[in-house]
């Protein structure tokens, strides 16, 4: 039936019923009634004309789509009649669905979206493991890369890269960007082709090849105007004129490091033995078609067993003549590339997704309660429809249509909330989650939102629909006219929903509380030095222009000296390693007279830090023993080192480390020993949440003489009472006066450096706290609503009690007890639920047990306080019931 036919039939029906009313009225007039009375009586006899027409129209049937459209139109009409209810419901849903959509966008972009390569599931990150050193994931050396690529039978290709940073551009406006040195095989392995130009050739990765580079799409657009003509031209990279041979596709990035320049990784196959032991490469392999990661792991085991034999070494791993992988203390590790990139952020995101889903469930419970209460007040109408022959199916459909209209409208508004929320998330959290650039509202997210909308609509719409049971439908019209005093089962459902809401909110609160406490503990970890009024920035000297080590040291000294003359600067120093996110160096280091017995650590040091003489005083790192560097430590005087407490404890247990001698790796004269001059307090180099590693401090001034080298990459540290902006202009002026080609990079306060390192735990804790707060607010509103409704329902009873002499206090207690009982049960269920599920977040916690009693207790008290507030308002309203008015009701 077309809508047009339907319209004509509706008019027919109107005429038919009008004729009925006319005939009845005429007969009544004939019996002596006045025309007005007769018309009114005829109407009264007929009943609710509107509903009769509607039920009659339902009998005409029609197609599924048409029926649906009718239900929807009817639902919209009904909702428009109660705009307050509709607005509350749509807003609640918009928040719930919007938050879910926003978080799912992140989960989708970061975890679910495959890597942008063909067959991304075949890509494997290959790293090394040193079980005896406690390194679980470590780079591999170049010899291992060349040999692995040659010898393995599981991968169709293997590429290698490592990331660093370069200065791009001429002397005038240099930019410091992340770069990567990559083997020519990396790109065929990944299966990408450059957007323009070409990839490196094998020849270009050999020593003495002319320098070439590929630019990222982002750098090409931002620094080179997006002109394709740049391909083939030369640009200045770290002082070297380098030919641009290609531009990478937009968003291309191997391990989410923001690489902007790709340079060839120069490897000489003839020098392979000189590469052994220098671990700095990450490998990406593409598994041959049909070979799974698990299969490959098994296939590759024999390779490890026989590696050193192929190189002419002894099969006995203790005969460590050649540094090669083996099955004991130098294993290779294979991880799915995407899984590795997502890393520990995955669990955090899933926890957020679960939390925000709980919020939505609580919102659904609230709406189910709202709809239940609405259904109670519409009971008469429902019974009437049923009596007129409207089937139960029709009524259920009607409820569902209403809730679906609400949820779809909520989802539509929710998408706006999600867009705004995502914007805020991405803005607030740049360093916290990997692959953040992939996050957005794509088709998958929209599907998810639609599914949520339909799912929530069904969930909260079914509650009142299911209440349309046989008993309530068999009530006759006359019975329906009088209000039944208490629908005990409906009240039970409402109370159960409130308990459930409270329980879910409590579980969320406990989770949020645990993460908040973890975060608070993380911020309170002693970093080992005084971070207040401390600023840092990074300088890298191009190798081409600073080939001479002595010149490098002199430049950093010069900058420090000039900075110290700036009024407001107390002191300035420099260090090669910037805490708290330093990658482990793990340098082999000899300890004089040390024999590694079983259970003793191998001769290896986690961190080498090259520093200026005033390093410890500027950083305010106390010396625990011995002395710090001083004027007596000249460039050519006997070499000294300072070690940290952890190293002293580990290698010199029960004795003083001062005076002992060690030999750093890579020194010029292998007969030269460095004397330990002092022991410094531990500094959290590898993260505030990590165990402190062993560390030695080497004097930058002594390195040219004894190590034949000095770092090009140094972090300048300034202690100053100036503001960052005031300091920044001085810093830029001084650096430019020394060498205008040096970009100042990453100028931040040390507090900001540490804050950035905690971006992810803060992000997680903040979002969870927001979700928990929303959950608690919803649960409180739900409790309030149910209690207020119950007070309204019991007005008569309360009136009688008061008429019989019950005091206000008594009535107050009566209502409060009812509400707090629900809250109490909800609290207990929630705490039990929290005990069961907080184990999931234990890997995200720091210094807090998943069963932390203080958190549980605080959440319990807080929740009871909120519940009390939610109960007091309806309870006070109950005390104001006027017995006379209440008794006159109905």
């Amino acid at each position: 039936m077309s809508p047009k036919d339907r319209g004509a039939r509706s008019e027919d029906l109107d005429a038919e019923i009008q004729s009925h009313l006319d005939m009845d009225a005429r007969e009544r007039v004939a019996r002596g009634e006045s025309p007005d009375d007769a018309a009114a009586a005829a109407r009264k006899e007929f009943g609710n004309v509107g509903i009769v027409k509607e039920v009659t129209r339902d009998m005409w049937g029609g197609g599924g789509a048409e029926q649906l459209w009718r239900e929807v139109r009817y639902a919209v009409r009904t909702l428009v009649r109660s705009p307050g209810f509709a607005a509350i419901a749509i807003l609640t849903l918009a928040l719930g669905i919007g938050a879910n959509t926003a978080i799912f966008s992140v989960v989708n972009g970061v975890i679910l979206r495959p890597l942008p390569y063909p067959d991304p599931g075949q890509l494997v990150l290959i790293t090394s493991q040193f079980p005896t050193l406690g390194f679980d994931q470590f780079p591999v050396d170049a010899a291992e890369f060349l040999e692995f690529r040659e010898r393995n039978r599981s991968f169709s290709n293997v590429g290698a890269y490592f990331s660093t940073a370069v200065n791009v551009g001429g002397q005038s406006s240099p930019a410091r960007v992340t770069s990567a040195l990559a083997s020519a095989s990396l790109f065929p392995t990944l299966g990408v082709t450059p957007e323009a130009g070409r990839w490196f050739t094998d020849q270009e990765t050999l020593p003495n090849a002319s320098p070439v580079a590929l630019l990222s799409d982002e750098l090409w657009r931002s620094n080179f105007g997006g002109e394709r003509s740049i391909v083939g031209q030369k640009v200045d990279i770290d002082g070297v004129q380098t030919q641009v041979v290609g531009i990478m596709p937009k968003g291309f990035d191997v391990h989410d490091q923001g690489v902007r320049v790709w340079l060839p990784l120069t490897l000489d196959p003839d020098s392979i033995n000189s590469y052994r032991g220098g671990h700095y490469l990450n490998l990406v392999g593409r598994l041959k078609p049909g070979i799974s990661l698990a299969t490959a792991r098994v296939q590759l085991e024999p390779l490890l067993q026989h590696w050193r034999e192929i190189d002419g070494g002894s099969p006995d791993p203790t005969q460590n003549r050649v540094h090669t992988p083996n099955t004991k203390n130098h294993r290779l590790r294979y991880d799915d590339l995407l899984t590795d990139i997502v890393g520990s952020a995955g669990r955090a995101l899933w926890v957020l997704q679960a939390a925000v889903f709980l919020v939505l469930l609580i919102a659904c419970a609230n709406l189910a309660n709202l709809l239940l209460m609405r259904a109670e007040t519409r009971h008469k109408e429902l019974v009437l429809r049923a009596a007129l022959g409207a089937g139960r199916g029709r009524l259920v459909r009607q409820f569902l249509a209403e809730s679906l209209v609400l949820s779809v409208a909520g989802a539509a508004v929710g998408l706006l909330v999600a867009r705004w929320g995502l914007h805020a998330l991405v803005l607030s959290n740049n360093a916290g989650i990997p692959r953040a650039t992939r996050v957005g509202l794509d088709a998958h997210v929209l599907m998810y939102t639609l599914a949520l909308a339909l799912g929530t609509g069904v969930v909260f719409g079914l509650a009142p629909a299911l209440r349309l049971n046989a008993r309530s439908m068999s009530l006759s019209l006359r019975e329906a006219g009088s209000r039944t005093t208490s629908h005990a089962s409906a009240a039970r459902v409402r109370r159960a929903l409130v308990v459930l809401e409270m329980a879910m909110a409590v579980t969320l609160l406990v989770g949020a509380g645990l993460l908040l406490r973890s975060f608070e503990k993380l911020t309170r970890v002693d970093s080992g030095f005084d971070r207040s009024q401390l600023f840092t920035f990074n300088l890298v000297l191009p190798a081409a222009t600073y080939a001479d080590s002595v010149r490098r040291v002199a430049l950093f000294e010069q900058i420090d000296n000039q900075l110290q003359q700036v009024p407001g600067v107390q002191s300035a120093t420099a260090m090669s390693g910037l805490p708290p996110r330093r990658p482990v160096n793990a340098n082999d280091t000899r300890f004089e007279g040390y024999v590694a017995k079983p259970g003793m650590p191998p001769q290896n040091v986690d961190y080498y830090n090259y520093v200026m003489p005033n390093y410890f005083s500027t950083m305010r790192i106390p010396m625990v023993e011995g002395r710090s560097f001083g004027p007596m430590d000249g460039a050519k005087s006997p070499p000294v080192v300072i070690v940290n407490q952890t190293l002293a404890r580990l290698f010199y247990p029960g004795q003083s480390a001062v005076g002992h001698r060690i030999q750093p790796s890579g020194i010029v004269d292998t007969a030269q020993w460095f004397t330990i001059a002092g022991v410094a307090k531990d500094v959290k180099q590898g993260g505030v949440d990590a165990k402190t590693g062993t560390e030695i401090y080497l004097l930058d001034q002594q390195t040219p003489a004894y190590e034949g080298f000095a770092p090009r990459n140094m972090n300048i540290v300034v202690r100053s009472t100036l503001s960052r902006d005031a300091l920044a202009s001085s810093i830029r002026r001084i650096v430019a006066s020394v060498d205008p080609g040096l970009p100042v990079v990453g100028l931040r306060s040390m507090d900001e450096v540490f804050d950035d390192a905690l971006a992810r735990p803060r992000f997680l804790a903040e979002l969870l706290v927001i979700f928990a707060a929303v959950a608690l607010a919803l649960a409180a509103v739900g409790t309030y609503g149910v209690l207020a409704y119950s007070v309204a329902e019991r007005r008569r009873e309360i009136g009688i009690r008061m008429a019989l002499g019950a005091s206000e206090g008594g009535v107050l207690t009566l209502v409060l007890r009812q509400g707090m009982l629900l809250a109490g049960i909800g609290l207990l269920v929630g705490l039990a639920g929290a005990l069961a599920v907080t184990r999931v977040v234990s890997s995200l916690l720091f210094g807090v047990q998943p069963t932390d009693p203080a958190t549980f207790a605080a959440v319990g008290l807080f929740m009871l306080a909120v519940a009390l507030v939610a109960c007091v308002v309806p309870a006070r309203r109950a005390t104001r019931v006027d017995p006379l008015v209440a008794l006159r009701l109905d």
Partner: protein
Amino acid sequence: MAKRHAPLTRIELLQGTLDLIILQSLRWGNRHGYGLLQIIRTMSHGVLQVDTGSLYPALHRLEKQGWIEADWELSENNQRVRVYRLTPAGRKQLAVERSKWEQFSTAVAEFFAAPPPEEA
């Protein structure tokens, strides 16, 4: 004013029974909705009460099922009225429903007339 029947003697129609009664009433002649209400009341001596509201959904349902048909006609007062008549299919349906009803009422009557069962 006509005397109303005491509520106790009125019988609420079960759903389904109303269909049977409508079909039977139309066997006696074509009628509009208001006329049907009157004849049902008259023929059952006021015992069977049809809720006005439920008559029209039932009529339109029966029409949809093809058991009755309707046309607009002019009443004796020159009023346009929608008049229903039984279709052949409706006649058959009436026979079926009626025989079911008779079986049911006979069974119930026999049940009540039966002597008490012997104690085991």
